[in-house]
């Protein structure tokens, strides 16, 4: 995990167990309102998980992109 002034890069590529949602949960725990989390993953299950996570926690998914098997999700922390 790489943090620079409110923007955290979470590289979860190649992690399937416990997986990207674990890394997101760790980043969320360390975040504050206004922070942006950029999550990289290869596990396709990440899209549904992040949607469910955002719905539950009330945080905002800014974008979800997929290219060459790499999924990039940008999340803005609006609630903590």
């Amino acid at each position, binding site marked *: 995990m790489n943090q620079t002034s409110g923007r955290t890069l979470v590289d979860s590529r190649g992690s399937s*167990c416990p997986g990207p949602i674990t890394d997101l949960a760790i980043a969320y725990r360390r975040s504050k309102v206004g922070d942006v989390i950029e999550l990289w993953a290869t596990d396709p299950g990440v899209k549904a998980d992040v949607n469910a996570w955002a719905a539950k926690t009330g945080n905002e998914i800014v974008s979800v992109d997929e290219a060459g098997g790499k999924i990039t999700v940008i999340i803005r922390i609006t609630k903590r």
Partner: protein
Amino acid sequence: MKRTLIVGGGSGGTILANSLDRHEFEITMLSSSFGHLFQPALLYVAFSHARARFVRDERSLLARHVNLLHDEVTSINLKNKTVATKSGVLFPYDYLVVATGMHTDTSQIPGLSETNAEFGDYHSSLAKAERLSYHLDGFRGGTIAIGQSSPIIKCPPSPLEGVLLTDQLLRKRGLREISRLIYFTPYPRPYSAEPMNEVVEPLLEERGIEVMTFFDVERIDPANKTIFSIEGDKIEYDLPIIIPPFVGANITYEPSDAVDEDHFVIADKSTLRIKGAEDAFVVGDASNLPTSKAGVGAHLQAKVVAQLLSGHPATFDGRTSCPFDTGDGRGTFVIGSYDAPVIKARPTRIKHLMKTAFQRIYWISLRGTLNPVFDVYFKLTAPKKAAAASD
């Protein structure tokens, strides 16, 4: 002779020390504890009164040529290639292997230290597991809330093992009808990896275990017996079984960016080389590798590092194979690797027997003599790789 320093005498450090050729390496192990605990037993101490010799003298587990010293490492300088200890000794090294594991830290969550001191847990120590066992014995019905309080955990199936064994215990004692069992987890589903969850979720339903997902513990109010989550939910309990957060060893590194915020050592996930160092490696729970924290991983990583130190090419593929006791004499394994998603494996009696058998062979496995048997097992149970993804 290559002066090799191993820090930590747990599963990973012990296997590594025993795997190095004594004609090639001068091995010193620095460990803060001489009592080597078979950690998976904590589950059975807490939930089924297991009492056996779960702690052995580390000296008795090491090959005779390994120089074992009882000292706590306080700082590691990767640039000067030295390690300093609490007793004030400075050790230079040619090769360093960090195998300091991880430990629970109740201070991260308000209210957890008091709760943990009273009720214990099954991940910290034998004494804490016995404390939990005592409270389970005294339980006469009500609500038991059980789960992990943060995402990083030793042996990912262990929270579910705890809830399934609690259910079994309550049924046996005729208390299940008058008890609520609530399982909480920071994940979107009971088991984080979907294929395994397909096995677990129906089991929990069948046993009437309530599940609260996306429940990341923020604080505990011991006076009102309530657990609150970051996501805004709460659980009221009579008996709390809360697995504390974990952190890496409290060692200062130079350069300081060799560890993350929680003191986990940052390393290359294939070669296990510590960030920025050519001659320093990490094995086991001490690292921040994207794989499960389990003895199996520590074992496989120790084998990779032993090969690399001896000049043979080797890489770690993230392989896991965590035994999972689902109660009622059945069990399964969580199997996956960096590029092979976790497979769906149904619980059987045979797999449970394999877990029980491992308790007997653990001490011998530390010697490395059973490696050929494990090699066959890992080959036979290898998960299928997913399609490769590019950057």
